[in-house]
């Protein structure tokens, strides 16, 4: 009896040795790989096409593929608007990410410590619902909250007897910051979810337990145990937020359309206006390439990290 089981095991093992693990027939390749390849080829072709257009002399609705070198890149950097965009994009990258991550770490830790489980699930749902909303809708609502004369915020302040000093998105020197606030509002719940999930590893929980037994304070545990041990989770979150902040288009489009003047303009909006309103196609393509280059710097370390995880 046991002999037969043994034999059966041997046969199974022999069969598995000839297993196709790693081997893919032509049919398998056709079914599993070709669809993805087709779409990737189209995607990267359009990317290459954009790069090519940025070196041509296409400046009206009619196509013109005459090579013109760096002409339109020079045109772009000679415009003050480009440098306003760069400054604003950096404001977005820093102020859209640093406060969001900081508040998210604090909140996630607080939720872990919270003595009331009902509070935790309530807060999670409460701050996460914006992920289901588009920036267009969020922007429409916040435009009205922000409206300086009849808007909700200033009306509330007036109702409390305070003469509101805030002009929100209509004051050119501070408008971008009010836009970034909307972004933080929208992404906070998402960030908390990601931080919370990186808290929940067995090793980290054990370390926290040990530190608690040793009498370490909660604040101490946060800074010397939790934060150093959720580095990979933090890196992922920071990369995702950086990418979203870099690509920001919808909020600016809907709330200020770059105004007042060009004070809240960003690269993505400039790209859209240049390409589809001014029809300076080569210049627009150039802006697309610049945005891609900036995104690339953020994406590559992140992708390498993901690659290691995936094929470990």
């Amino acid at each position, binding site marked *: 009896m046991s002999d037969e089981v043994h034999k059966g095991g041997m046969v*199974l093992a022999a069969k598995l040795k000839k297993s196709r693990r790693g081997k893919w027939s032509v049919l398998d390749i056709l079914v599993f790989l070709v669809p993805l390849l087709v*779409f990737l080829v189209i995607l990267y072709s359009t990317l290459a096409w954009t790069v090519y257009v940025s070196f041509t002399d296409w400046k009206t609705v009619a196509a013109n593929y005459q090579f013109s070198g760096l002409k339109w890149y020079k045109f772009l950097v000679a415009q003050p608007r480009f440098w306003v965009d760069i400054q604003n994009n950096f404001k977005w990258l820093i102020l859209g990410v640093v406060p969001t991550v900081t508040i998210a770490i604090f909140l996630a830790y607080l939720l872990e410590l919270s*003595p009331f489980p009902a509070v935790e699930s309530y807060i999670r749902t409460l701050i996460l619902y914006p992920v289901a909303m588009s920036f267009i809708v969020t922007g429409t609502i916040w435009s*009205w909250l922000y409206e300086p004369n009849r808007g909700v915020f200033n009306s509330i302040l007036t109702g409390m007897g305070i003469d509101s000093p805030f002009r929100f998105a209509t004051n050119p020197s501070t408008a971008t910051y009010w836009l970034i606030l909307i972004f933080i509002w929208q992404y906070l719940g998402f960030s908390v979810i990601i931080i919370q999930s990186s808290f929940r590893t067995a090793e980290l929980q054990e370390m926290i337990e040990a530190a608690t037994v040793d009498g370490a304070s909660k604040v101490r545990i946060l800074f010397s145990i939790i934060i150093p041990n959720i580095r990979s989770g933090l890196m992922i979150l920071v990369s995702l937020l950086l990418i979203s902040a870099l690509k920001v288009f919808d909020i600016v489009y809907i709330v200020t359309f770059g105004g007042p003047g060009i004070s809240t303009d960003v690269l993505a909006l400039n790209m*859209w206006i240049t390409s589809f309103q001014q029809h300076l196609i080569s210049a627009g393509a150039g802006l697309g390439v610049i945005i891609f280059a900036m995104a690339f710097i953020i994406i590559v370390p992140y992708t390498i990290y993901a690659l290691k995880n995936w094929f470990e």
Partner: protein
Amino acid sequence: MKSKNKSLKIIVFLVLIILSCVYLLPIYVMVTTSLKSIDEILAGSYLAIARNPQFSNYAEVLFGSNRFRSEMLPRLVNSTIISFSVTLLSAFFGGLSGYYLSRSRTIFTRVLFVLVGIALYLPYQAVIIPLVIIMAKTKLALSYWGLIMSYLILNIPLASVLMGTFFLGIPIELEEAAEVDGASRVQTFFRIIMPISLPAYASVAIIIFTQVWNEFFLALSLASPKTQTVQVVMAEAKGTTLVLYNLQMAAALIAIAIPLFFFLFLGRYFIRGILAGALKG
């Protein structure tokens, strides 16, 4: 980690109140305002409940009127057709290629993975000009296919990585057993992997659907009048009906109804999808 510290309770309580104000205020204002008449709004007191709920605002937004020409109903149909098509197709193809990415370990697959990873977060600005050219040349821009194809190009890499993440978690022994029984890889996938991965498909579908439904840049650049999406018409309504806040808010509520429904009733799948996208891809 749970504790019964008193000062902690106070902090939790304070945070609870602050967050409730910050996150409930916008949605509360949206709902009450959408039910008010414009006179009631201009009288101030935004936080008051609508005295005389104007449900006709919703009808006006859906079907249009003299003062609100951006009727939402046809755009809801457009967004629904486009989002559902993209969701179904990307989940299907993404499942196939996600399976390949999760089971093949060659150098080629690694290179492919990097290319997919970059595609995942590619700014649309870097591909929009050729897409507009292609869709105009092929006349696809005039039909739903222009937007559907464009979204597919950008969402299939995402769906592949998301599905692959879930497939990585399926023990390989399951497939080996099927293989011993003589099943081919395609059969194994469709008869074993796919059926047990239905929850994963649900998560991925919800994420893709929400993303496509809420997408604005491509929709704005590629939509013809007949294929305009909800987001584009929302932006248009905001530009042309500056003071009709009640109608704007009604339109906003209609625009978020479907994704919000998914979030509230299928929240678990939603969160799982977000985490899969964030932690592996």
